[in-house]
Structure formats: structure tokens, C-alpha cells
């Protein structure tokens, strides 16, 4: 049954429907795979064997009774450790939340459970989603299945690596500046950041509330569409959730896979190509654009002049919101509590200080300090205020671009996966890896990353990014599925077939 773990979620759903397998079996083979390879990959922070098997058994019982909860009922999934899970540890990759077990489910998790997807466990991430490499996890880095010495992207490196190494057919990620798409690009998987407000943020431990969005992490575009339809849609518990039905995502993916893009206008963003982009990345991107043209799409070059300020604006808005969000971790009610040394009877303030000093990692502290500074009186207008203006300009750039193009495209990340440790001492170099993904978060528009091949110089995966107007997430799936189908035809199978075989621990 080794074959089961390599199949797409859509295939597995068909296999379940045909009675070829059961949810318990599917869940068990993935748990076995985790036991075999996760020692080397370290995609998971917590594995819920018992819970997953119980949910799987319940799914099989539903199926036997002919009462399926969703098209993905019975297909197991991994969840990024930034989403609250009732009864399961939720650490956000931070020591400060070590041992915290939420008393409630995030809305996304509640919808997964309601749809019958057994939850295998919680995936590794940069602490509080702050990073592009998963090296900032307090529990150790995740390794890229394509080359264990390299990063799997971040912050959702755990989810992407789990899917890329066949430990889970599906995973949930969250994307604040690229944390779903960039790991997708560097691990040869598919990742989608939905329209802001398209998926409930209730129970997503916020890094930057106005940017965060949960979304699918999968191996195929169709799987992302299926998962997106399970988790998306209005939630009254999230005031920023959009009270509109989702577009028909699965239909769009199926239509796109047929390979006809006649009449679709593809906009290549001038500011997101060329200088700063690795040659192999640029090459695969250019070829992919030509494939789309071959499928009937027309290509226009669009300019988004304010995108050059996106990174700067992002690194003011995100830390500002984060500095406030992270204030609640004060040792008073939950999580880590550190008693300061050398103080006879420490005050609440002493305990807060000692706990935050020990509980937060350097990158988190760096951003708290940045954000605190940016919001301080006398600096607010120059920093936070200006950044918000840039954000408005970036939204206008998108509006203008979408006037002449139905979707915008770019490489997802400027480089392939770098080596673990390579950029750890140079935060700005690390931040630059998100240069192409950040504009979508600032404007709230949806984005998808789909594998575009391997870079010639290092043989590592390259991601192709598709961006669409807000609430037009269906366009991502149509174009993404078309490109995926055309490329797989060229490759003779999925890109992941070319990934090295992981050594199996026994």
C-alpha cells in the first residue's frame, strides 16, 4: 500500500468512494510514514495518533451509513501549529506556549472536523509565523525533503514539507507575507493564500491581523480547491470575514485542467521579475508563461510601481500589529511562567519580564521592538501612518493592473531553497525572499503558487505565482490547474516524482 501515500487527496477520495480503502487505513499509512521519515524532516511538532484514528473510524462509520460529511470525508490532514485545536497542544513554534492546550477549535479546524478530515497532527513553523525558513521555530528547523540541508521555506515549512514528503496528503498553512506560497515554491508543492476575509481567522493565533490568512497546502491544484471549499466562506465570529459565497473553485480547477485558456489575459508584473531573481527561477517562469500562451492566453506586461515599497511597508505594519498581539503572553493565565532569578518575592511585572525574555526567540523580540517603536507617539505618523498610505497605493496598483489583466503572474520566490543557516545572520536577506508574495497580503488579494520545474543550476523546485482580484479566487485555480496539467504532460508526471527518496527509519 506504499502507493496510497503518493496519491492526491482527490484520488484518495475516489478510492474511499470505490471502497478500495478506508479512512482508518489511510490515516494509519500516513501515521506510519510520519514515524518513518519525520525524524529526518521534522515537519511535525505534535502527532495525534489516537485522535486521528478515532476521527477516521467515525468517517468510515459515516460512509457505511451513507452519510458523507464532505467530498474529502476521511482524507487525513495536517494543521499548522498556529491554529487553535481543542485538546491538542498549540505552540505557534514558541517556547512561551509550550504545553498550552486550547479549550476551543479555530473555525478552520472546526470546519475540517465537521467535514470529516482526520487531523494527523500539528506542523512546525517559524515562531509565531515570523520567518521564511522555519529555522526560527523554538523546536528546531524543518528540513526540505528535496535536500535535507536546505530550508523548506517559512513560516509554514512544516506543512509544506509534510505534504512534499508524503506524510500527509493535505495540510493547512497560514500566509501573512508569503508563508503558504513561498514554502510551496521551494518544496515543489501547491499553496494558496485565499482572499483576505475568505477564510475565517477565528482561532488563528494572529501575527498581523490585517494580513494573516489561512489556506490550503497540497500537492495538486485540484486538491487545494477541494480543501479551500471546505474551510472557506463567511464566519460571524470573524468580523473581517466576507459575507459572500465563495466562487466555484473546484469547477474552476477542473475547467483549467482541460488546458484551454482562450481569452484569459495574463499580466506579467514588471517589478517582480529580472534583477534579484535567480537565473533558473527566471528561466522556468518565462517558459511557464509561454506554455500559458500556447494554451490560448494573451500576455501583457503590467507595471505596479509601488510594489518596490511593499517590503518596507510590510515590515512596519506587520511588527506593529504583532507587538500588540504578543503582549498577552505574560505568564499570568497560560503558557510558560519563568520566575526571575535573584529576586526574593518577584512582582507580576518581574515575572512577565523574565517569562518574555526566556519565552520569545530573537526574531520575535526583534519584531516586537520594531513594532513598539513604529507605534510610539511621535513616530506613528512617520512609520505606521506612512506604511498604511503605501498600502493604499499598492491596492491601487493592483486595481490598475487588473484593469488590463485577469490574473497577474510572477515567480513565487526570487530563489530556490537556500541552505539552513545561510541567511540566519542577515534578517534583511531573509526578508527579501518574500518580495514577490508580500504585495498580495498588503492588498488582500488571493495568490497561488504552483510548481514550475527545477532550476538548472541546483536542481531545486521553482514556484510560479498567480494573483487574482479579491473574491476572484477561482481564477487562481483555473490558471494554476492549466499550467500544472501542461507541465505534468511535459514532465510525464508530478514534479515530486523527481524528488530524492527519503531514507526510511525502522
Amino acid at each position, binding site marked *: 500500500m506504499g502507493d496510497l501515500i503518493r496519491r492526491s487527496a482527490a484520488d484518495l477520495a475516489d478510492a474511499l468512494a470505490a471502497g478500495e480503502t478506508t479512512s482508518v487505513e489511510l490515516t494509519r499509512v500516513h501515521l506510519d510514514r510520519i514515524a518513518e521519515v519525520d525524524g529526518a524532516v521534522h515537519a511535525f511538532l505534535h502527532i495525534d495518533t489516537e485522535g486521528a484514528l478515532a476521527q477516521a473510524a467515525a468517517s468510515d462509520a459515516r460512509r457505511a451509513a451513507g452519510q458523507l460529511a464532505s467530498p474529502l470525508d476521511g482524507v487525513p490532514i495536517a494543521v499548522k501549529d498556529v*491554529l*487553535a485545536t481543542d485538546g491538542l497542544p*498549540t505552540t*505557534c513554534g514558541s517556547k512561551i*506556549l509550550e504545553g*498550552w492546550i*486550547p*479549550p*476551543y477549535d*479555530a473555525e478552520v479546524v472546526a470546519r475540517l472536523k465537521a467535514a470529516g478530515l482526520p487531523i494527523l497532527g500539528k506542523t512546525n513553523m517559524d515562531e509565531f509565523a515570523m520567518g521564511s525558513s522555519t529555522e526560527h521555530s523554538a523546536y528546531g528547523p524543518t528540513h526540505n525533503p528535496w535536500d535535507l540541508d536546505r530550508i523548506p521555506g517559512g513560516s509554514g515549512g512544516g506543512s509544506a514539507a509534510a505534504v512534499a514528503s508524503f506524510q500527509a496528503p493535505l495540510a493547512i498553512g497560514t500566509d501573512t507575507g508569503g508563508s503558504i506560497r513561498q514554502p510551496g515554491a521551494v518544496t515543489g508543492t501547491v499553496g494558496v493564500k485565499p482572499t483576505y476575509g475568505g477564510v475565517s*481567522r*477565528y*482561532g*488563528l*493565533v*494572529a501575527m*498581523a*491581523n*490585517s494580513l494573516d490568512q489561512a489556506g490550503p497546502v497540497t500537492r495538486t491544484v485540484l486538491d487545494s480547491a477541494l480543501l479551500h471549499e471546505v474551510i472557506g466562506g463567511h464566519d*460571524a*465570529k*470573524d*468580523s*473581517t470575514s466576507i459575507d459572500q459565497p465563495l466562487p466555484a473553485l473546484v469547477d474552476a480547477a477542473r475547467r483549467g485542467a482541460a488546458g484551454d485558456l482562450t481569452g484569459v489575459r495574463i499580466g506579467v508584473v514588471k517589478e517582480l521579475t529580472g534583477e534579484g531573481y535567480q537565473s533558473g527561477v527566471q528561466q522556468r517562469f518565462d517558459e511557464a508563461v509561454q506554455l500559458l500562451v500556447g494554451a490560448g492566453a494573451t500576455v501583457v506586461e503590467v507595471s505596479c510601481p509601488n510594489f518596490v515599497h511593499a517590503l518596507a511597508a510590510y515590515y512596519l505594519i506587520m511588527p*506593529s*500589529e504583532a*507587538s*500588540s498581539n504578543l*503582549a*498577552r*503572553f*505574560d505568564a*499570568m*493565565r*497560560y503558557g510558560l511562567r519563568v520566575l526571575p532569578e535573584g529576586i526574593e518575592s518577584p512582582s*507580576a*511585572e518581574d515575572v*512577565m519580564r523574565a517569562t518574555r525574555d526566556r519565552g520569545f526567540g530573537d526574531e520575535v523580540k526583534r519584531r516586537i521592538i520594531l513594532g*513598539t517603536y513604529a*507605534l*510610539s*507617539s511621535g513616530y*506613528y505618523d512617520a512609520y*505606521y501612518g506612512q506604511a498604511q498610505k503605501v498600502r493604499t497605493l499598492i491596492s491601487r496598483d493592483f486595481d490598475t493592473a487588473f484593469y488590463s489583466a485577469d490574473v497577474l503572474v510572477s515567480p513565487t520566490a526570487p530563489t530556490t531553497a537556500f541552505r539552513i543557516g545561510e541567511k540566519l545572520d542577515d534578517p534583511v536577506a531573509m526578508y527579501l525572499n518574500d518580495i514577490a508574495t508580500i504585495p498580495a497580503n498588503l492588498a488582500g488579494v488571493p495568490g497561488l503558487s504552483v510548481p514550475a520545474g527545477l532550476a538548472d543550476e541546483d536542481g531545486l523546485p521553482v514556484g510560479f505565482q498567480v494573483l487574482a482580484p479579491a473574491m476572484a479566487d477561482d481564477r487562481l485555480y483555473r490558471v494554476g490547474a492549466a499550467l500544472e496539467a501542461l507541465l505534468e504532460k511535459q514532465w510525464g508526471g508530478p514534479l515530486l516524482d523527481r524528488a530524492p527518496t527519503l531514507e526510511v527509519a525502522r
Partner: protein
Amino acid sequence: MSDALVPYDEALAAFDPAMGLEVHIELNTVTKMFCGCPTEFGAEPNTQTCPTCLGLPGSMPVVNGKAVESAIRIGLALNCDIASWCRFARKNYFYPDMPKNFQTSQYDEPIAFDGYTDVLVDTADGSEVFRVEIERAHMEEDTGKSLHVGGSTGRIQGADYSLVDYNRAGIPLIEIVTRPIMGAREKAPAVAKAYVAHLRELILGLGVSDVRMEQGSLRCDVNLSLAPIGTGELGTRTETKNVNSLRSVERAARYEISRQAAILGSGGSILQETRHWQEVSGVTLSGREKSDADDYRYFPEPDLVPVAPSEEWVRSLKDTLPEPPRVRRDRLQKEWGFSDLEMRDTIGADALGLVEETIAAGASPQAARKWWLSELARRANEQDVDIASLPITPAQVARIQALIDEGGINDKLARQVFDGVLAGEGTPDEVVAARGLAIVSDEGALSAAVDAAIAANPDVAGKIREGKVAAAGALIGAVMKDMRGQADAGRVRELILEKLA
């Protein structure tokens, strides 16, 4: 250590007081400001909480529409403009009773702003209307409540440990901020008290809060500063908190005037700080030092969408506001037939609403006024509490009057019924029964008591027989004493005169 004070008159001879009043009103919505938890007062600690009001990681707020409606109605009643678009903001600071270590409040975009309200202030020469300008009224959430255990002061310093109850965390608050109140001179403390009383009346009329100061559903911070007389400047202010009754508002303002004048008069300067009013000792004590450098790093709450009340909604709320307090007073005075003086005393005793409810429960206006202004105002004064916080309801007062009207008790017995009700012995009827206070109407027993009194006082009886009817008082007294007050004095008098005719 107590602060030096100068006599109040002396303070005013040298300085002009300026006041700013910040009043927090706890709304009586069924659920909290940003979650569905109940708001009932007095529940077991931490039983009315959820992930959102506990600030658990991942939780999110949703605005309570009823609270927004209440805020708009308060704003309209204070003649404010209502924002057509406004946002919530985070006020960032660390405190253990604040679950998120930021308070979701409003900053530079309050829901209501630029209003005023006309307050009736009691002065030596009658009532005077004083206009208080309202800078803003905004929405925010309450914090949890800390209980510091151990130590002598009940404050965090010196406590062995602290307990926090988050039931109060997230209860909707409206903060109403006045512009600096200048030119009130010696009346400043009276204006402060009258303003808070007026606000309470106004909000009771709106029905959006219980406004019980003793339960903390109306809290007033008194900002006060002094400037050399006639300069029109604003001096350094102190902010006095913990002012939990109307009387305290007046006393705290008065105290700060005397205290600050003593410091300034001796060449010192006022420390900008938070002070705490001490109800028992009647002084303010220094709290946390505050400075303009306090930086709350406000920014718009990214988890909430802007509040944008439509013009039609605001107009319909305006059209359905209840009558303003002054109009109501005029109407009630007319309905009740009170003289100006009676009305003033009733308002001065803070008993207008109580009298109104007592009348609504069946008492005559004069009877209702009599009991509240004589008997109950006196007791409130003796106990140093607001009259509204006495443990007796208007309906119970009306019932006591009904017992008198039915002839079941007399005024003297009624006072004992008040004693019983206030002592927690039950309803008026229960007190009458338990204490055996019913008037004796048994003619035989009365007649025997009268005969006994006549026999015991032959001199007095003789005088009455001679026509000196005024002497009957002594015999009536004797009979009433014999009957332990439970006799109808009128009937006793009739019997005495009959028997000695």
C-alpha cells in the same frame, strides 16, 4: 502621613479651580462588548468568560450592536454629533487584569463628540443652570477585577497574592469626557456632583445602564487643577479615582482644591498623578505617577471593521429619545403639585426617581415625598450612603403608606416597619407580622386601657371633666404607652372624652 490643607474659602480666594470629569458607564446589555458572555452582576468569579474575553490566543472580537445603539443614544442625549464612520483602537499597556494587555477602546474617532448638557446646580440662592460641555463619548471594554489578598491596604503593594475575576472583562463601557469646566469657582464641587447626578438621571431615562455607583456601573474620575485667580490658565492636574458615590464626587473635588491650594500656596508644585479617594477618611492618596509621556501606542483595531451608523438609524434613535431630565422635572412637578421648594428638596436629596417610583406603586405624591425626604434621607445621611442604596424599594415604601391608609398601622408604627425592612427582616407585611405591630382595634381592650388610665390619673380626669379638653393629651399618652403604641390615637381620644363627658 496626611497632606496639608488650607481652608476652602482661602483656597478660592487665591485660585480658580478647573475640572474635567470622566465618567464610565457600564451598559446593561445582556452580553459583553465583543463576545456572547452574559453580563449579570455578582456571579461566581470567572464563570462568565470565553476565549474572547479571556484574550486567549486566536480569539477574535465581534462588536455588540446593542452597545453601539446605546452609545449613540447617550451621545444624542448629550447633544453630541454622531460619527458617520469610526473605528475601535487598541490602547496598549500591561496589567494583569487586562487579558490581552491592550484595551479595545476608541481613540481619535469617538462615536459621539462635541456635545453639552445643562445641569441644575443647587446654590445658596436657589437653583442655577450650568452648561457642561462634552468633549466626547466613546465605547470601550471593561477590564477584569483584581482582588489583592494579604497586606493591610487591599492594594497590590504588600499583598501576599492577587486573584483576578474576568467576569467583568469585556463588559461594555461608555466613557463620557467633559471639556475643562472653568468658572464654577466655589460651586465647582457642587457642579461636579450635580453633573454626575444629572448624567445618572439622564442615563436611567435612556434605560441603557443601571448606573449604580456602589456596584461600579457608574464610575467617575475627577480631574482637577488650580490656577492663580483670574489668569484663566490650566494648572497641573491630578486625576482622582475610586469616587464611588455622589457625595464623594463633591467631597473629593473639595478636598483636592484645599490640598492643591496648600501646596501651591507654599510655593510647591502639583505632581501630575492618579490619586485614590478614601471614602472613610475623606482624603485622596497618591497613586501611580502619570505623565504625558504615557504612551499607549494606539492604533486601529485590525480585527474589527469600522462602525458606520446610517443617517436614518441615527435619526430614528434621536426621534425616539425619552424626554430630557429638565422637561421631565417640570412635568413631574406639575403632576405631583409640588411647590418649587419641595421639588428642589426632592432633587437635592437625589430622590426624584425614588419618589416617582413610589407614586407609581400607589402612594400619594405627598406621602412618597414625606417618607423619602424625612425618614429615609435622614437614615441615609446617618449611614453616610446614597439614598438610592438603602436596602428598601419604592414599592415597599408605597406598601408601608398603604398599611397606614388602611388603618393597619400609624405613623409611629410605620417608623418601626422602616427599621425592620432596612434591617433586612423582610417585606413591610412580614415586619408587621413578625414584630406584632398591628394597631389594636379591639374596643373592649381599648376601653379597659382607657378606664385604667382614668383610674390611675384622677387629677387629670377631673380637669377634663371640668372642660379642660387639652389635658386629654396626658391620658392619651398613658393609654398609648400601655398599648405599646399599637392603638389608634384618634379613637383613644374619642373614648376618653366620651367617658369623661
